[in-house]
């Protein structure tokens, strides 16, 4: 994993990019924080924030020419936030006299400030703070220069005097009535380590560096009006501050220009999205300044411009309160750490890899690919927590096994001839389809493992419908069937080592069958095929339904309204979105479009195996989704339905509508348990073989001498702990056969354990003849050495 490249992507994130007001403030006051404190009513804290960036803020805050207001995003949405007025109120309500300064030794160098006007005073104070011995040469008998022009026009004499007196209180030396000129400047140059020229007017026009304000590479620096060439108070103050930085660097012999691109005003990369912002009129002051309440109200109009597009849309980022900038730094740290805890593991395994962040990001940063690459790297380095995806990967192995995996060509004409008689042939499109059998598999129906697990009853009907409908229009191409798993769980888990097992088998089958088009019913299969099997032509079952017709259904117009939860894996597949909507409308339902639909689809929480690795995070996704609409949800991914129904949101798979299985609204919905899902797959294979291919198979079910009784409570516990009925049976079977169990004489319960692969399962049960009643089930991965 190229971590340097990754960090570069992180640096492109504009989450921390300042708002336009801060970028256009020459001293970069933290206006967001300032306004937020006012909103909270904490005027003292708001004043502290001003003081942080604005020198002599008690004065400048009242006379600042506020360039920030010109660029405010609210400008055309009710009027710019009245920052200048807010500053006045904050000074009135939050000003606290500074504590008596503690004199620090000034040992870093001697600096002369020529001109005790605003910029000179600012430069002096800043340099004093940095530890320089500062001397000010002022031609008049007082400091402040142009500040005095505001006396009685915004500033009071007493305030000006008090603020300026701090300079001498701090121990700086002021030489009043001392005029320095171009002619005697050299003598100051000899005496001081650096000079600051801030006199407003000067006899010689120096050529100054636009970033450092330095004259060539000399010890002379020019600021204030001589540099800004305007009368702006805040630009003058900024100039003084920037010169102080330059002089410090000059005396310390560090780079004069490094990392200074964003001093003064600059252009922010933030382009705040105002799509959902309603105009709100500026609060007018009733007296000379805003009252406390007026200020709070005005502050509350501030949009607090910050790019939060991804985190606003994603509950995963919300749970970890993280945006790509900090997320990527965490991944970088997690990847580089050698000794110690990998704290970001849990977060990395809680991303559904749905891709929504990239769609909403103004600069196009997507975490999906980054998370995928990170998980892959964790696996390769042996740092992926085993427990995170173990169950899902074992379940995938089950799908790969002979219990489920099945490939069949369309039943041949020869084998189906007992169907070719009247009236069957007249009424059954399926029989007619078989009759037209060509022997060439043009299509392979691939329902996928999850649909087969949870909507088992539809698979055979869909297959027969496909044979009938496709052969009717396209006699050359037979329709075969392929049960299996595409390998999406391995992809999500970063287990690229397991991908070939899934993908190679599919590719070989495809080649052997002379490259049929795969009909896919699962959006995750479609994504996996696109990524790992790009040579295979695929089409969604929904597009096939649209093209060749729906199974015969009872269509009544004027059915209710449903909201569509698009599958996140289809985000960029507009054909699927259109087919689904068209089918839903054909079936007589009306559609409510959610804000997050189609390319902005939100994940149900199953994606990226989050339901397995972090069930709490998965729940957040469902909660987020279920409150988006009052209507019941229509989905077309089996996992979406599973997640929503488990989250107690009524949801229908589009097949439920097609086959008229939309239950009445009073009965509760239920999804099969993890064990039932495996059994369903097993039985689906047997049923299809028997009913369609007339092949009798041995029952694949294990038989035991006992039966199990499992209460709903224990069932729920087993689901939460990812324990299968099959595991329980093995434990009890071993306990009975080998007497490997504990007995509790008081309750007459047994407690047995058995290690299956990398997990030890424990079962507490009561024995009543052949019936075992389960009391508890738990497991651990830790190995206990028994000897």
């Amino acid at each position, binding site marked *: 994993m190229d971590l340097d490249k990754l960090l570069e992507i992180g640096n492109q994130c504009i989450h921390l990019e300042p708002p336009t007001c801060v970028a256009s403030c020459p001293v970069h006051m933290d206006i967001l924080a300032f306004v937020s404190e006012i909103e909270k009513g904490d005027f003292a804290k708001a004043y502290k924030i001003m003081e942080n960036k604005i020198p002599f803020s008690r004065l400048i805050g009242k006379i600042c020419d506020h360039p920030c207001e010109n660029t405010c995003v609210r400008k055309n949405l009710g009027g710019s936030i009245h920052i200048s007025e807010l500053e006045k109120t904050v000074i009135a309500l939050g000003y606290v006299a500074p504590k008596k300064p503690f004199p620090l030794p000034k040992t870093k160098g001697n600096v002369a400030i020529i001109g005790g006007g605003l910029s000179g005073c600012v430069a002096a104070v800043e340099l004093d703070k940095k530890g320089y011995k500062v001397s000010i040469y002022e031609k008049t008998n007082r400091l402040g220069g142009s500040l005095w022009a505001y006396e009685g026009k915004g500033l009071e004499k007493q305030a000006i005097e008090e603020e300026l007196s701090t300079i001498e209180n701090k121990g700086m030396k002021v030489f009043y009535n001392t005029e320095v000129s171009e002619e005697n400047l050299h003598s100051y140059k000899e005496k001081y380590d650096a000079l600051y020229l801030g006199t407003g007017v000067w006899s010689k026009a120096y050529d100054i560096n636009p970033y450092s304000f330095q004259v060539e590479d000399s010890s002379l620096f020019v600021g204030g009006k001589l540099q800004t060439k305007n009368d702006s108070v805040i630009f003058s103050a900024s100039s003084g501050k920037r010169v102080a930085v330059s002089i410090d660097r000059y005396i310390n012999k560090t780079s004069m220009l490094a990392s200074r691109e964003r001093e003064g005003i600059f252009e922010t990369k933030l382009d705040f999205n105002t799509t959902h912002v309603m105009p709100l009129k500026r609060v007018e002051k009733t007296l000379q300044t805003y009252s406390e309440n007026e200020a709070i109200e005005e502050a509350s109009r501030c949009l607090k411009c910050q790019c939060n597009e991804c985190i606003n849309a994603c509950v995963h980022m919300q749970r970890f309160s993280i945006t790509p900038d900090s997320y990527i730094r965490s991944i970088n740290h997690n990847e580089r750490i050698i000794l110690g805890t990998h704290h970001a593991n849990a977060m990395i395994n809680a991303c559904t890899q749905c891709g929504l962040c990239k769609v909403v990001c103004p600069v196009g940063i997507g975490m999906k690919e980054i998370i995928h690459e990170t998980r892959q790297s964790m696996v390769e380095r042996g740092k992926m927590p085993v427990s995170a995806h173990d169950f899902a990967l074992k379940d995938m192995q089950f799908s790969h096994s002979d219990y489920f995996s099945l490939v069949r060509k369309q039943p041949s004409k020869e084998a189906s001839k007992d169907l070719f008689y009247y009236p069957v042939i007249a009424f059954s499109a399926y029989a007619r389809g078989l009759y037209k059998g060509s022997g060439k598999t043009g299509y392979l129906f691939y329902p996928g493992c999850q649909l087969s697990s949870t909507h088992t009853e539809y698979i055979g009907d869909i297959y027969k419908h496909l044979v009938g409908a496709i052969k009717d229009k396209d006699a050359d191409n037979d329709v075969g069937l392929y049960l299996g798993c595409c390998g999406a769980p391995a992809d999500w888990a970063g287990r690229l080592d397991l991908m070939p097992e899934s993908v190679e088998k599919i590719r070989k089958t495809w080649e052997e069958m002379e490259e049929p088009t795969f009909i896919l019913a699962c959006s995750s299969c479609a994504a996996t095929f696109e990524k790992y099997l790009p040579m295979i032509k695929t089409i969604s079952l929904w597009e096939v339904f649209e093209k060749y017709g729906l199974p015969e259904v009872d269509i009544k117009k004027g059915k209710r309204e449903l909201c569509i939860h698009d599958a996140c894996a289809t985000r960029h597949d507009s054909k699927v979105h259109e087919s689904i909507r068209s089918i839903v409308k054909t079936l007589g339902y009306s559609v409510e479009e959610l804000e997050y639909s189609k390319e902005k689809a939100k994940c149900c929480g199953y994606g990226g195996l989050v339901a397995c690795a972090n069930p709490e995070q998965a729940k957040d996704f469902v909660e987020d989704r279920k409150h988006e609409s009052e209507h019941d949800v229509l989905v077309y991914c089996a996992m979406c339905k599973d997640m929503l129904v488990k989250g107690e949101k009524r949801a229908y798979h589009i097949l439920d509508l097609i086959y008229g299985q939309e239950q009445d609204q009073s009965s509760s919905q239920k999804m099969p348990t993890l064990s039932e899902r495996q059994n369903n797959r097993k039985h689906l294979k047997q049923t299809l073989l028997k009913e369609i291919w007339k092949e009798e198979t041995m029952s694949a079910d294990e038989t035991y001498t006992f039966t199990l009784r499992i209460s709903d409570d224990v069932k729920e516990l087993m689901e939460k702990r990812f324990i299968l009925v099959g595991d329980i049976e093995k434990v009890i079977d071993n306990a009975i056969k080998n007497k490997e169990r504990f007995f509790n004489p*008081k309750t007459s319960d047994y407690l047995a354990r058995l290690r299956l692969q990398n997990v030890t399962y424990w079962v507490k049960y009561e024995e009543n003849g052949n019936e075992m009643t389960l009391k508890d089930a738990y497991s651990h991965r830790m190995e206990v050495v028994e000897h």
Partner: protein
Amino acid sequence: MKQEMDTTTLWMCDKCHEALVLQKVHVRYLEGSFEVELLKCPTCKMVFISDELAMGKMLEVEKGLEDK
């Protein structure tokens, strides 16, 4: 791994009909390996792990080791 369970129990070994005794047991997971005191059958050595221990402290230690 600090032991957090009863030092006595009603459970007894069904095969050996023995009361369980507290003894040092070796447990291991990934790179971690510990000695802990657990209840076991003195004859067949089968070790008793309760739900609370498995889903509590043991799970915590497993997760800790997985993140190492």
